[in-house]
């Protein structure tokens, strides 16, 4: 019905579709697949690779060392992806994490220099603080200046990258203190000789658990879903939309700072060129894990699985001796595939 609104209405016509036809709920097998599908895919992949890499009666893929490797390799992206999940669920997007990782990594490296002798907590706090600040700036520009998130974070991406190069004059910052390096290279040992958990993995797990709790159990999490699901409804219910956006982007920046600490301590230096394309990998992880780019849908669990799927795929192809170029193509196909499946599921609801 053409409702000719001559007065300024707060509404927009998106809600018309909802008023016309009720989306149909899903039942049975389809619902099960929808919720746990990505996890099953992940399990399937693991089983397949476990099988394909059997050599002399043992599966190379399943070796403890290998699994730990996979987890450690996925830590940096995984941490960023948790933050990005919040942002996408809230209806936004963030293109800056890769560059912010480089920038905050450089700052951490500078503060972690052996020569300065600062306790390792200082670079950690520094990185987290600056990362949060970058996120806060993103959030503020997006909410107060009403600049589309894509553009605002694109700007931050280039600026942060530039800042990194400026500070370092294009050269890596190295000779970092031992305690700091332990964060990225050390591990907790015990429970038998060959058992160890790298610190990055512990950090990743902690970040994931905290993020999960935040997103699913707190008011902050609910408002994040509300913003992405229907910003107008959130506004009408009295949610402070601007502040919520700022908080969400700040959290993303905070996690990016943590990821920067892990990365920098792992490679033992702060590099201006670090983190290239990390934001895309993080977004891909979230999307594969079921986060919808439209907002309002997504979980940390899903994102973690998404991160692991990419990491496992890379690892598996390495073990099987497949060229790394194929890995990229496959990653792209998985991303497209998961979004197509998700879109088809959504469309059938209307």
């Amino acid at each position, binding site marked *: 019905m*053409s409702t000719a609104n001559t007065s300024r209405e707060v509404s927009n016509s998106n809600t018309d579709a*909802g008023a016309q036809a009720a989306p149909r709920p899903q039942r049975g097998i389809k619902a099960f697949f929808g919720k746990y599908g990505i996890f099953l895919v992940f399990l399937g992949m693991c089983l397949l690779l476990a099988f394909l890499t059997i050599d002399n009666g043992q599966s190379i893929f399943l070796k403890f060392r290998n699994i730990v490797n996979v987890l450690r390799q996925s830590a940096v992206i995984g941490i960023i992806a948790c933050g990005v999940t919040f942002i996408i669920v809230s209806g936004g997007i963030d293109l800056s994490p890769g560059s912010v990782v480089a920038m905050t990594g450089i700052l951490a490296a500078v503060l972690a220099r052996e020569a300065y002798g600062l306790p390792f907590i200082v670079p950690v706090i520094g990185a987290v603080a600056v990362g949060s600040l970058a996120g806060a700036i993103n959030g503020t520009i997006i909410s107060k200046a009403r600049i589309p998130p894509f553009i605002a974070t694109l700007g931050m991406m280039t600026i942060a990258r530039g800042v990194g190069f400026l500070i370092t004059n294009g050269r890596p910052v190295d000779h970092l203190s031992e305690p700091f390096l332990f964060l990225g290279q050390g591990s907790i040992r015990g429970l038998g000789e060959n058992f160890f958990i790298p610190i990055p993995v512990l950090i990743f797990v902690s970040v994931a658990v905290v993020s999960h709790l935040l997103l699913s159990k707190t008011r902050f999490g*609910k408002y994040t879903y509300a913003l992405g699901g229907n910003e107008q409804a959130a506004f009408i219910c009295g949610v402070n939309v601007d502040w919520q956006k700022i908080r969400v982007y700040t959290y993303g920046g905070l996690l990016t700072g943590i990821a920067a600490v892990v990365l920098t301590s792992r490679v033992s230096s702060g590099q201006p060129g670090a983190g290239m394309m990390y934001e895309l990998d993080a977004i891909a992880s979230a999307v594969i894990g079921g986060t919808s780019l439209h907002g309002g849908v997504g979980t940390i669990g899903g994102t973690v699985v998404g991160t692991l799927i990419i990491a496992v795929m890379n690892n598996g192809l390495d073990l099987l001796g497949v060229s790394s170029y194929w890995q990229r193509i496959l990653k792209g196909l998985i991303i497209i595939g998961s979004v197509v499946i998700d879109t088809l599921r959504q469309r059938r609801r209307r």
Partner: protein
Amino acid sequence: MGEEFLLSMEHIRKQFPGVLALDDVSFRVRPGTVHALMGENGAGKSTLMKVLLGIYQPDEGVIRFDGKEYKQMDIRSILTQGISMIHQELTPILHMTVAENIFLGREPVRGRTGWVNHKELYQKTQDLLDALDIHVEPTVKMVELSIASMQMIEIATAISYNSKLVIMDEPTSAITEKEVDHLFKMINNLRDKGVAVIYITHKMDEVFQISDEVTVLRDGKFVGAELTSDITRLKLISMMVGRELTNFFPKEDVQISEVKLEVRDISLEGKFRNISFDVHKGEILGIAGLMGSGRTEVIESVFGIHPPDAGEILVDGKPAKIRQPMDAIKHGMGLLTENRTLSGLFLPLSVRDNMVYSNIDKYKGRFGLNFKQMDVDCEHQRKSLELKTPSLAEIVLNLSGGNQQKVLIARWLLTEPDILFLDEPTRGIDVGAKTEIHRLMIKLVQMGKAIVMVSSEMPEILGMSDRIVVMHEGEKAGELTREQATQERILQLAAGEALTI
């Protein structure tokens, strides 16, 4: 308390660029009453409520609520002040649960970290739904509910604020009769508790069923406030619609000949049922009715935008299969839509480009488009329509409303249609341009064309039509010839009553 009115809005004025949405509007609501707020689209009802809710700031006027002078604050404070609202457009957050939606913004939390007490959340929701006798599980995601259930949840949300004043904007737009009864039970409960309800609706039946008082707005002005028991349907309609009838219509005698278009028993699910009419060459058929009666839907359906589910359309006596607008155009039809900026004009494009769009095939040359011919045709239209534009290259956005409308008419004339559908052809156009367009319509029917005109303007309908079809809630309420038609008869049919005058 001593205050007679729970809410009083006095002399509210709200100006937007180009339109005075509220012009010295006053509105008073007594506690423990259901007060209906009525008026056509654009009358100012929603704007008035948005001023009350703090979404808009009025330019002038004073608001008193619950004995205190009321300064607009943000929405959060207003909700705690004791006013809550059910919005016209459903705005649920689809992927969150019923409980999460209802208590959004006021979740029960533990401590200062904002940790949500889910057990309490779901319990509170269950209690609320039980108290209101609504049978929905709190843990269900909104997306899984029917539209009717969603609306019931929306209603429950507004009531759960325990406000002194609840505003309901078209609360029954998406629910069935059974739920309407349920809603009225809830409203009666509220009334007994001393809560005031502002009930905005187009549905006259509901007004007479549930309200104690009625206020009518028209064109941003306050028309009147009466006790529901003191007024009749007819009085209500004429308050909403009544304007002074003046007779400056260029109606001349035109030869009306054979039937050009026949519409037999067409229906479109959810929009209209069993509509039949015919139009002759040289005739202007007016379609009248209240907002929401389905007039636009009918002509858009015949034109192929949403083809009917059932029924037949005949052009020149032969069945016409119209599945999309292109088919309609091939059968010689043209449609001027209700909202020219939304679905008619290409605002950033030039006058010439706008004019040729429906007819571009005509200008296909061997090496691209025949621009010279385009210019000739458009210039011809410009002259015959007396279109005021600096040049054909001027972008349409810069033209006045009347001239924009002429551009659209020119576009359709270039397709040389035999049947022209006009939906509110002179809405928002100044008097001078109105007359020009009317004169144009007469010229067209003199040439033997048939015109079907939907209009909400009573003078236009009465002055221009040879016959008038009146619609009411998706059905044809009646048909009047030019001689039979009077304002009162049209109003009576439009309100769904039998002709008694």
